[in-house]
C-alpha cells in the first residue's frame, strides 16, 4: 500500500508525561450554543435557575445538533450573545459557579436495550467529535442499518504538535476505551475495530495493545508519525486501505472513525450518566509558564485556564484553540473552553511574528506533499481566474486544510487561506447552481 504524503512536523509533545490535574475553581462559565457542527442548541434554562454539574443547559435543535450540559454547579447569571472564534455571534448561557461542583442528582447509569437506544444515548450525551472537528457523534453513529459498518477506526493518531490530551486518554482511561469498544461491538455489531496510534507514542501503543488483547476483533495499528496522520481520510486509508470518495462519508465505504476521547466519554456517560462536561486540555506554548494537561470544566475561560497553569512567562502574541497546524487563533482570552477544545496554546510574540509572503518560486513542494494530491499552485491560478469550473477541475473542494502546503512553502505564501477562500467560493457556486 502506498503511503499518503505529509510533512514531518516537530512533535513538541513535552506534556505527554503530565498526568492531568483537575481545575475546579472558576469565576464564570460560559456556554455558547454552537459547540458543534450543525444547528445551534436551544437554551432551556433562564436567568436565576440553579444548575449542577451535568444539568442540561440547552437541547439540540433538529437532526444535526447536540445538547449542552453545565460543567459547574451554580446559578444562571445571564443569557447573552458572545463572539466565537469563527467570527459569529451566538447566544451563550453564563453560569456563576458556587464552587461546590455538585453533580446533578438526576444523573443515573443509562439503560440500553438495542442499537436505537444506544445511538439515542450518544446523542443525549452531548458528545461531539472531540478530536477537534465537533461533529455530533450521535448523528455519525445513526447510519440506519448497522450492517453497513464493516470497520470502526479509533483515532489515537494525535498528529498535531504539542497536543497530548488523547495520549493521556489512552494512558489514563484505557478502561473507558475498552468499555466503549464493548458497547460498539454489542450495539453496532462492529466486527472489526482498529485502533490507530502514531509510532511516536510507544507507551500508548502498549496501553492499547493491552486492552486489545483482552477481546477479539480489536487490532492496534501503528502508524508512521507523518502529519496529518489523524486526518479522517488519511487514517482510514492507512488503517483499512479504503479510499473515501469525493463528496462521500466514511460510512459510504463501511467505515466509522471515532476519536479515542470521544469513545471514552461515551463509555463514561453510559456507565455513570455523566454527559460531556469536562475536557482534558493540553496547555502549552512558548508563552505558558507551566505547560501541562488540565481537566477543565467546559465553559471555563481561557484566561482562567492559563492562570491555573501559572499564567504567562512572556507576552503571548497568539493564542490558539487546538494545535499549531489546524488550530484557530482567538481574539481575546474571555472565550471559553468548548467541547471540541483539546489544546490551548499561547505562542510568545517571537513565535507569533507574522511572516511576509514573497513570490511563488514554483518549487512544487506544496504539490508534492499534499496528502490528497492537490496542487495549491493550480488552485491559486484557478481561483485568480475566477472560473468556478476551473476550481472544480483542480478539486479545490477536497482540501482538508491540514496546513502542510503553507508549512513547507519557502515563499511563506498563505496557501491554506487561499484554499479556504476557493472552497467557500466553490461551495457558494454549487449552492447557487442547485437552486436553479
Amino acid at each position, binding site marked *: 500500500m502506498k503511503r*499518503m504524503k505529509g510533512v514531518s512536523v516537530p512533535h513538541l509533545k513535552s506534556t505527554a508525561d503530565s498526568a492531568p490535574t483537575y481545575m475546579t475553581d472558576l469565576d464564570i462559565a460560559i456556554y455558547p450554543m454552537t459547540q458543534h457542527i450543525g444547528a445551534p442548541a436551544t437554551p432551556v434554562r433562564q436567568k436565576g435557575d440553579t444548575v449542577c454539574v451535568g444539568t442540561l443547559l440547552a437541547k439540540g435543535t433538529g437532526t444535526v445538533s447536540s445538547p449542552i450540559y453545565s460543567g459547574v454547579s451554580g446559578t444562571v447569571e445571564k443569557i447573552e450573545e458572545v463572539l466565537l472564534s469563527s467570527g459569529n455571534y451566538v447566544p451563550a448561557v453564563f453560569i456563576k459557579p458556587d464552587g461546590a461542583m455538585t453533580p446533578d442528582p438526576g444523573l443515573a447509569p443509562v439503560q440500553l436495550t438495542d442499537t436505537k437506544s444506544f445511538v439515542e444515548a450518544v446523542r443525549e450525551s452531548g458528545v461531539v467529535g472531540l478530536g477537534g472537528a465537533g461533529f455530533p457523534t450521535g448523528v455519525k453513529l445513526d447510519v440506519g442499518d448497522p450492517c453497513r459498518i464493516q470497520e470502526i477506526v479509533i483515532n489515537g493518531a494525535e498528529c498535531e504538535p504539542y497536543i497530548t490530551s488523547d495520549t493521556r486518554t489512552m494512558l489514563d482511561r484505557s478502561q473507558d476505551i475498552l468499555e466503549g469498544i464493548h458497547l460498539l461491538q454489542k450495539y453496532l455489531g462492529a466486527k472489526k475495530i482498529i485502533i490507530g496510534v502514531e509510532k511516536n507514542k510507544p507507551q500508548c501503543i502498549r496501553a492499547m495493545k493491552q486492552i486489545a488483547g483482552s477481546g477479539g476483533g480489536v487490532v492496534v495499528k501503528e502508524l508512521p508519525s507523518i502529519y496529518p496522520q489523524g486526518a479522517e481520510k488519511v487514517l482510514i*486509508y492507512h488503517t483499512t486501505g479504503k479510499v473515501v470518495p469525493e463528496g*462521500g462519508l466514511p460510512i459510504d465505504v463501511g467505515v466509522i472513525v471515532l476519536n479515542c476521547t470521544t469513545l471514552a466519554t461515551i463509555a463514561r456517560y453510559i456507565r455513570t450518566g455523566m454527559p460531556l462536561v469536562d475536557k482534558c486540555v493540553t496547555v502549552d506554548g512558548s508563552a505558558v509558564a507551566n505547560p501541562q494537561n488540565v481537566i477543565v470544566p467546559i465553559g471555563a475561560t481561557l484566561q482562567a485556564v492559563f492562570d491555573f497553569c501559572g499564567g504567562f512567562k512572556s507576552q*503571548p502574541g497568539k493564542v490558539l484553540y487546538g494545535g499549531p497546524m489546524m*488550530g484557530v487563533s482567538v481574539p481575546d482570552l474571555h472565550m471559553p473552553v468548548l467541547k471540541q477544545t483539546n489544546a490551548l496554546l499561547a505562542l510568545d510574540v517571537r513565535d507569533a511574528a507574522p511572516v511576509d509572503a*514573497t513570490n511563488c518560486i514554483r518549487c512544487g513542494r506544496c504539490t508534492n506533499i499534499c*496528502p490528497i494530491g492537490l496542487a495549491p499552485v493550480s488552485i491559486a491560478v484557478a481561483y485568480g481566474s475566477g472560473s468556478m469550473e476551473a476550481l472544480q477541475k483542480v478539486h479545490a473542494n477536497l482540501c482538508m486544510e491540514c496546513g502542510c502546503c503553507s508549512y513547507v512553502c519557502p515563499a511563506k505564501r498563505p496557501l491554506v487561506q487561499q484554499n479556504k477562500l476557493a472552497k467557500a467560493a466553490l461551495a457558494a457556486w454549487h449552492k447557487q447552481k442547485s437552486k436553479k
Partner: protein
Amino acid sequence: MDQKLQITVSPHIRSSITTGGIMLDVVIALLPALAAAVWLFGARALYITAICVLACVLSELIFQLITKRTPSIGDLSAVVTGMLLAFNLPVSILEWQAIVGSVVAIVIVKQLFGGIGCNFANPAITARIVLLLSFSQSMTYWTKPAGFSSGDLISSATPLALAAQGTEKLPPLFDLAIGKHAGCMGETCALALLIGGVYLLIRRVITWHTPVAFIGTVFLISFFAGDFSLETALYQILSGGLMLGAFFMATDYATSPPTGWGKLLFGIGCGVITVAIRLWGTYPEGVSFAILIMNILTPYITKLCARKVFGAVRAEKVQKT
C-alpha cells in the same frame, strides 16, 4: 493584557525553508565548480563570475526600483543566475558582453515576466543562447585550461567539437572528469559539478529525477548510437554542459514540472534533444537548446503529470450527482 493577539489563518508554525535559504544552498553547491574554474582557467574566471553576479543583482535592483516593486535581491536568486550565466561563458568573453548577457537574463527573461517564479524559461540558459547568437565568435572562442598562468590564452577546440569533426585525438576520460579540456569555464569540471549536485540532493533542494533522467538518457542513447561503446557514452556525459545543465539548470523550479513523473519526462526530453543536436545537428553542443525547448513544454508536462487526486470523482460525475 494590553497588547492585542494576532489573528491569522492556520497553520501557525512554518518550516525553516525559505527562498533565500534554497538559493544560498545553490550558491554553495556552485562553489566547487567555481573553484575548479579558477584552478583551470585562472583568476579571470573569478573576475567574470563577479561581473555577471554584480550585473545581475544590480539590474534586478534597478529594474525593481524603476518599476516601483519591492526589491527582492535579498533572496539571492540573481546571484545564482549570475553565477550560472558566468559558468556558461568562455573565460575569454569580453566584460561588456557578459554584462549584456546578465541584463538579458534578469530584465528580459525574468523581470519582464513578473520576477522570480514567473519566468517561463531559464534566465541563464536563455541569456547564453542570446549571446551565442549575437556574439558567435567570442562565445565559441575556447581556450585550453591554463591554470593561473593565464597570460596568454591558447585557442583550443572543445571535446564535443573534436568529436563532431571525427578527430582521433580526443582528451582522455580522466581529463574530461576533472575538467582539463576546453569549454565554458564552469562546465568543464564534471567532478566539481557532481559534488555540488550531490550537495543539492542531500539538502533536498532538488530531487534525483531530472538529473538522473537527463544524464541517463544521454548515456543510453550515446551508448546505442555509438556502437555499444561504453567509452563513447561516458565521453558524452562528461563533456559539454551536461553536468551543469542536468544538476543546476534543468532543475530550475519555475521552468520545470513539479512532480516526480513530470521531472522524469522533462529530463528524458532534455536528454533526447541534447543527443540529437550533438550527433545529428549543426551545433556541437545542445544542452542549452534542449533545456530551453523543454522549458517551453513544461506547462504541458505539468498538466500531463499532475498527481492523482485522492478519492477524486471525475468532474462530469460531480455535476450529475
